[in-house]
């Protein structure tokens, strides 16, 4: 059963990569200016060289041939060359990827720590004023665009990871609080409390095993939110990560670079969701 789940997710990622790759190759092929090559304007080239360059472009006219050619190159680690930065896309991604992964990782860690701590305290304290205060704070954060949070982090010299955490935190908190409220109102928990079981024991033995798979699903979704937030945060905080690269590529209309980044981010999102789903599946099986 677990093997089938992993296989299903693996297939979904593969199909998405293939379809996404085809759509991206189509976009790059149909983008204005693809048929022209700056090198053809080089006065140092002779007629034969210019003709050779032209023939290379003509060979790429067929979208399917262009796709299979791109796929073959991608399988060998060649993701093409950035039009605006004139550097191999794979090198650009390799240089900037670690910073983005670090930002996303720290942002997720901070956000989940705060969300779980506040949601657990709200569920155990059960004071209306506390709940209202937390709701107002998270509600206000939900109304702020990620780019504004990034601007505030620049203004207050706060690390970019905090801005990412603040984008994800209100959503994480609200889901977690609602799930906890629902779990604590379940009859078996009410009975356990009435019998005098300690709060910690109720949480570890009765609440977490029930909520584990659902919280993991939310964690998978929050990876997508964090990756999305890297664009404004890195662009406005001046952090040289993949988000900033995507923003620069969008401003320069550098499609080969932009579509490669988008596919990579999509695959990361799918991987995160699939991992959350598989672990959730294992936890459910273990609980059963």
């Amino acid at each position, binding site marked *: 059963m677990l093997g089938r789940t992993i296989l299903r997710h693996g297939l979904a990622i593969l199909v998405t990569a293939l379809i996404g790759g085809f759509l991206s190759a189509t976009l790059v092929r149909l983008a204005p200016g693809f048929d022209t090559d700056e090198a053809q304007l080089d006065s140092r080239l002779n007629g034969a060289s210019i003709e050779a360059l032209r023939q290379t472009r003509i060979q790429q006219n067929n979208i399917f041939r262009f796709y299979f050619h791109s796929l073959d190159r991608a399988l060998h680690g060649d993701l093409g060359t950035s039009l605006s930065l004139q550097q191999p896309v794979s090198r650009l991604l390799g240089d900037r990827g670690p910073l983005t992964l670090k930002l996303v990782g720290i942002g997720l860690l901070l956000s989940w720590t705060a969300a779980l701590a506040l949601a657990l305290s709200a569920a155990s304290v059960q004071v209306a004023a506390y709940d209202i205060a937390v709701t107002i704070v998270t509600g206000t954060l939900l*109304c702020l665009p990620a780019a504004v949070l990034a601007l505030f982090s620049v*203004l207050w010299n706060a690390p970019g990871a905090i801005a990412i955490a603040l984008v994800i935190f209100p959503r994480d908190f609200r889901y977690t609080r609602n799930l906890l409220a629902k779990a604590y109102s379940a009859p078996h928990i009410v009975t356990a409390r009435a019998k005098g079981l300690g709060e910690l024991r109720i949480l570890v033995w009765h609440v977490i095993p029930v909520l584990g798979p659902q919280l993991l699903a939310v964690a998978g979704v929050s990876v997508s939110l964090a990756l999305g937030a890297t664009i404004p945060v890195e662009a406005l905080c001046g952090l040289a990560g993949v988000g900033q690269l995507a923003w620069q590529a969008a401003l320069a209309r550098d499609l080969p670079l932009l579509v490669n980044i*988008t596919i990579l981010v999509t695959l990361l999102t799918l991987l995160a969701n699939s991992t959350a789903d598989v672990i959730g599946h294992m936890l459910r099986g273990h609980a059963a």
Partner: protein
Amino acid sequence: MNFWRRLAFLVLLLVLGMSLAANWLAPAGYRTQYREAAGAPPSRQHWLGTDEIGRDRLARVLYGTRISLLLAPAAALLSTFMAAFIGGLAGYLGGIWARGAMAITDLFLSLPWLFLLITVRALLPLNVSPLISVLVTFLLLGLLGWTSAARVLSASAGSFRDSDFVRQARASGIPGFRLFWIHVLPNLKPVLYAQFWISIPVFILSEANLGILGLGVAEPMPSWGSLLRELEGLVSVGEEPWKFVPLILLIIVVTSFQLLLSKEEGLPV
């Protein structure tokens, strides 16, 4: 309607009314420059001061609010129609149609929203006229924002597929599309309303993000996104507090939509 929802509705009406009355409240318009008063603080002539090239900030806030508050619902309407058509029809037809439509929806949903927006925005020319940039931005939001709503609508329409009234209508010979249009779609109204209201604040915030990143509405046309770009030049929060007016207005409007939404979410789905 409880107190908070009523208040939210009144606030939205007030903000919309003020933005529609921009021609009277700020007759100079959003592009008139007062070069002798560039970057001026609030005064009797310019209630919210002027921006760095001398344009009246109040006028720009009012006109920007008008653009965001009229076009975000228009984009939400477009995305809801698309979701109803794609998701609703796929759910109603079921089988391979539903699986195909949901596979496409899942593909879109696995793309982080902002990455998808900037990728598609980059495909279109960036140096377009301000009016075209407004239309392109909101059209893009409407055309790309249907996916999550389509998923919900597909599930809802699927639940009607084998219901008694649909079977009876089918048995009496009503053709498929007519049956969907006349009998299934009206039953999806509560879900459609909810998805419409959910989309508006999402689109307002997305436009703000795109605007701050320089990929949204082009100058001199104001929008909340372009107005918020002014915050980039701030050195401290207390320095020029009047520059925060667009942000405060954005928070008030999005909060109001969310308060209104709490009613829509309570509808039977």
